[in-house]
C-alpha cells in the first residue's frame, strides 16, 4: 500500500433536521484496496459517501485527496477528481437508452452530436471484458433491476474512476452476478484503484474487503481488517448484540390453496412473452419460495398477481375469488398484501410522511375514519406502533419518506404490508437492502404470518433466504416454472442448475 492514502475524510459531521447523520467520522482509503463501510440501516453510510461525491456538504470536517485538501462542491467536481459512485438507488433516466445513460455528462467524440454508436461499442466491449452483458439500445425502464444495476456498474467502469464508491451494489444482483462483479472489482484494485464498498451481506464483505469500518448512529464504532473477522463477529459489531443468522421454523399444517394460478400468460414491456403457461398453487400456512435469476419473469408474475399488469390469458384466484385483471384495489380487497420489488418507485410516495405512507392501503378502513374524515389520533397510534415494532429509524412520524435511509424505507413498507392479516402475501425480495438485524426480524415476521395461515409467495434471489424460509421452492426460468422441490431434500447445487435452465429430468436423465 502507498504511503499517502488516496482519500482521507477527517472529522466529518453532518446534521439533518432531527438527525445527526455523521458524527466526527474519520475514514480513509489507500489505492489498491477495498474498504468496507458496515452499519445498520440509517447508520450514516450513504450520507458519508454523498458528502464525498459532492451531493451533500459536510457541516464540519475536511476531505483530503492524495494528501491535499479539496473542496467537493458538486458531483461535477467529484467527477473531476476521478471519483465515481454507484448509488444505493438507481440513478438512471428511465426513458433513455442504456447507451444514453452511459454517455450522459461525458464529452462526445463528435462534438455537439451524440456518439452513441461508439459508446455502444465500448459498452459491449466492457460487457465482454467484465461479464456484464447488456443491450446498449435497450430503454432503461424495460430492464429488470439486475440489468439496471449492470448499467450502473458500466457507467462507473466507463468513466474510469480512480476511486469508486459502491453503495450496496449487490443488493439486487444474483449470486452469479455478484461473483462476476467481484471479479471485476478485483481487476480494478489490481489496477491501483481504490474502492469503498457498502453491503449488508456479510459473506460478501468478508470475501471482498481488505479493511472494514463500522458505523453506528453516525459514529465510527469499530475498525478491523478482514483477517480474523467472521460473520457473527461483524454482526455483533454492527448491531451491538448477538444475531441469529438463520431463523427457527416450526412445522405447520398446510391448508387449502389460497392462491391458484393457472395457464397464466403475460406479455412484457418489450412485447415478448415473459410468463408462459404458468401454473402455481400456494397453500395457506406455507411459504413458497420462487428462486431464479432476475429477469426470468418474477417481477412480472408479482405485478400480474397484484393487478398492476394485464394477463393475456389464464386465471388468478385468491381465496376462491377470481381476481384476474382486476384493479389493484380489487385484488387487495380479495385479501392480497404486496411488497413490491422497486420499493422507492412502487411502494412508497417520497414526499409523503412516514405516517401517511403507513396508512396508504388502510385509508378507507373504519378504524381510521371518523365520520368520513381521517382520525389522526388513531392513525398516529397505529403508525407509532408499526414504526417501533419494525424498528424503522426515523426522526418523527412527520418526516417525508424520501429522506429516510434506504433500508428504513424498506422496513416501512414491510411494516405496512405485514400489519394486517392477508389471505395471500406476495413479497418480492423482502430483505434486499435491509440490515441483518432487521432481516432477522422480517424473517421472523414472515414465519409468524405463515403460522397464522397466510399463504406466502416469496420471490428472492438470495438462496440463503430461499432455503432458510421456504417450505417449497419453485424455480423460475424464462417465464416457466422449471420444477418445484423440497428444500430439505434438494441441494443448492441442483436449484442453481435449474436456475440456469437445466431441468431436473434433463440432468438426471444421463445418469439413469
Amino acid at each position, binding site marked *: 500500500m502507498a504511503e499517502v492514502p488516496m482519500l482521507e475524510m477527517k472529522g466529518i459531521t453532518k446534521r439533518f433536521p432531527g438527525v445527526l447523520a455523521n458524527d466526527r467520522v474519520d475514514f480513509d482509503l489507500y489505492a489498491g484496496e477495498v474498504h468496507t463501510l458496515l452499519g445498520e440501516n440509517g447508520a450514516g453510510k450513504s450520507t458519508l459517501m454523498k458528502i464525498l461525491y459532492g451531493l*451533500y456538504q459536510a457541516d464540519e470536517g475536511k476531505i483530503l485527496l492524495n494528501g491535499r485538501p479539496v473542496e467537493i462542491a*458538486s458531483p461535477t467536481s467529484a*467527477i473531476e477528481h476521478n471519483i465515481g459512485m454507484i448509488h444505493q438507488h438507481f440513478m438512471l433516466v*428511465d426513458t433513455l437508452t442504456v447507451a*444514453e*445513460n452511459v454517455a*450522459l455528462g461525458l464529452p462526445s467524440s463528435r462534438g455537439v452530436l451524440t456518439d452513441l454508436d461508439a459508446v455502444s461499442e465500448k459498452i459491449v466491449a466492457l460487457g465482454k471484458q467484465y461479464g456484464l452483458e447488456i443491450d446498449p439500445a435497450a430503454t432503461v425502464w424495460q430492464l429488470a433491476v439486475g440489468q439496471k444495476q449492470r448499467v450502473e456498474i458500466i457507467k462507473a467502469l466507463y468513466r474510469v474512476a480512480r476511486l469508486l464508491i459502491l453503495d450496496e451494489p449487490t443488493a439486487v444482483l444474483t449470486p452469479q452476478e455478484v461473483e462476476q462483479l467481484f471479479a471485476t472489482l478485483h481487476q480494478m484494485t489490481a489496477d491501483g484503484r481504490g474502492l469503498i464498498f457498502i453491503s449488508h451481506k456479510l459473506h460478501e464483505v468478508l470475501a471482498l474487503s481488505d479493511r472494514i469500518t463500522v458505523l453506528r448512529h453516525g459514529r465510527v464504532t469499530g475498525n478491523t481488517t478482514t483477517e480474523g473477522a467472521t460473520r457473527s463477529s461483524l454482526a455483533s459489531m454492527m448491531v451491538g448484540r448477538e444475531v441469529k443468522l438463520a431463523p427457527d421454523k416450526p412445522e405447520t399444517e398446510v391448508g387449502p390453496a389460497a392462491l391458484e394460478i393457472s395457464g397464466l400468460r403475460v406479455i412484457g414491456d418489450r412485447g415478448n412473452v415473459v410468463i408462459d403457461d404458468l401454473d402455481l398453487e400456494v397453500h395457506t400456512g406455507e411459504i413458497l419460495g420462487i428462486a431464479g435469476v432476475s429477469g426470468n419473469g418474477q417481477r412480472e408474475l408479482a405485478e400480474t398477481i397484484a393487478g398492476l399488469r394485464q394477463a393475456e390469458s389464464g386465471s388468478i384466484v385468491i381465496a376462491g375469488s377470481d381476481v384476474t385483471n382486476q384493479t389493484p384495489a380489487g385484488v387487495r380487497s380479495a385479501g392480497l398484501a404486496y411488497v413490491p420489488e422497486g420499493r422507492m418507485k412502487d411502494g412508497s410516495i417520497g414526499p409523503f410522511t412516514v405516517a401517511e405512507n403507513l396508512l396508504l392501503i388502510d385509508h378507507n378502513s373504519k378504524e381510521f375514519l371518523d365520520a368520513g374524515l381521517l382520525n389522526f389520533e388513531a392513525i398516529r397510534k397505529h403508525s407509532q406502533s408499526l414504526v417501533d415494532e419494525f424498528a424503522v429509524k426515523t426522526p418523527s412520524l412527520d418526516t417525508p419518506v424520501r429522506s429516510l435511509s434506504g433500508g428504513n424505507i424498506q422496513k416501512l413498507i414491510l411494516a405496512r404490508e405485514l400489519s394486517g392479516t392477508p389471505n395471500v402475501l406476495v413479497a418480492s425480495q423482502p430483505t434486499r437492502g435491509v440490515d441483518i438485524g432487521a432481516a432477522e426480524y422480517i424473517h421472523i415476521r414472515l414465519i409468524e404470518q405463515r403460522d397464522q395461515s397466510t399463504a406466502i409467495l416469496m420471490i428472492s434471489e438470495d438462496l440463503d433466504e430461499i432455503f432458510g424460509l421456504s417450505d417449497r421452492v419453485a424455480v423460475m426460468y424464462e417465464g416457466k416454472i422449471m420444477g418445484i422441490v423440497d428444500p430439505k431434500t434438494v441441494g443448492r447445487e441442483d436449484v442453481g442448475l435449474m436456475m440456469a435452465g437445466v431441468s431436473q429430468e434433463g440432468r438426471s436423465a444421463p445418469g439413469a
Partner: protein
Amino acid sequence: MSDFFTEAVLIATVAGAIRLAVPLLLASLGETFGQRSGVLNLGVDGIMLLGAFAGYYTVLKTDNVWYGLLAGIAVGIGLGLASSLISVTLQAEQGISGIGVYLFGLGMSDLLFQRLVGTPVPITKFPKVDIPGLSDIPWLGRMFFQHSVVVYLAFLAVPLAMFIINRTTFGMNIRAVGENPEAADSLGVSVAAVRYATVTIGGTMAGVAGAALAIDLGIFQQNLTNAQGFIAIALVYFGAWRPLGVMAGALLYGFVNSLVLQFKTLGIIPQSWSDIAAMAPAVITILALVIVARRFRAPAALTKPFTRGT
C-alpha cells in the same frame, strides 16, 4: 357544398391552415424544449405579445422585416432569461409565475404601443417567396410553396428541433434533466444550465412567433395574439412533447380553423351556427390529439424545481 370543391377554395383552405399554424408552431416548438427539460412556461403568450410589438415597431421605424424579426428574437431572449430566472433560480411555482409573465407582456405591449404608436399603422409584410420549381406544381404549388419566408423557416425548425433533441448531447441532457434531474446531476450535467438554455430557447421562439404574427399581418393591436400562446402550450401536451406531434397539432388546429372559415364564407355552415362553429377548432384538436397522445407520458420532472440533496 359544391362551391367548396373549387380549386381556389381548396387551395385557400390548405394555404390558410398553414398560415394559421405558423405562429403556434414556432411558439410550441420552443415550449417543447422547456417542457422536455421539466419547465412549464405559461408566459408564452406574454412573450409573444412583446415580441409582436417589438417586431412591429422595428419594421415601422426601419421598414426592414428582418430587423423586425431580430427585434422579436432579442425580446424573446430577454424574457426567456427572465423566465428562467424566475422558474429555475428562484424556483417559483411554475403554474403561477408564468401567468405573471403573461400579464406583464399583455400590459407592457399595449402600454408601449399606446405610447410609441397610438393609432395602428400598417407596416411592410414578409416577402412572399415562391420555391423555384415546386411552386409551379398545379394545386400543391399554391398550397405549400407560395408562402412568406417565415412559413418555410417555421417548418424547417421542426426537423431542426427533432435533430437537437434526439441527436445532440445537449438534447440528451434536456431529456435526462426533464426525466430524472438527480441522475443527470449525479453525472455532472448542470440541471440549471440546461433549463436556462431551454427556457431561453422557448422564450426566443415565442418572441419570433409574435414578431412573425405581427409582421405577417402587417399590423399591431392590443392583445394581438388573442391567447395563441396558451394554445401553443396545449399543443405541446397534445403533441406528446415531440416536435412532429406538435407540428401535427398546429396544422390540425390551423386546418380546422381554416376549414370552418371557408365553410362560413360559403354558407355551408349557416350564419346562425357560426358562434358554435368558432369553438370547433379547439374542440376537434383537443379530441384528436388526446386520442393520439394518450399513450405518451409527460416528462417525469415537469413543473418540479430541482434542488440537490433532498
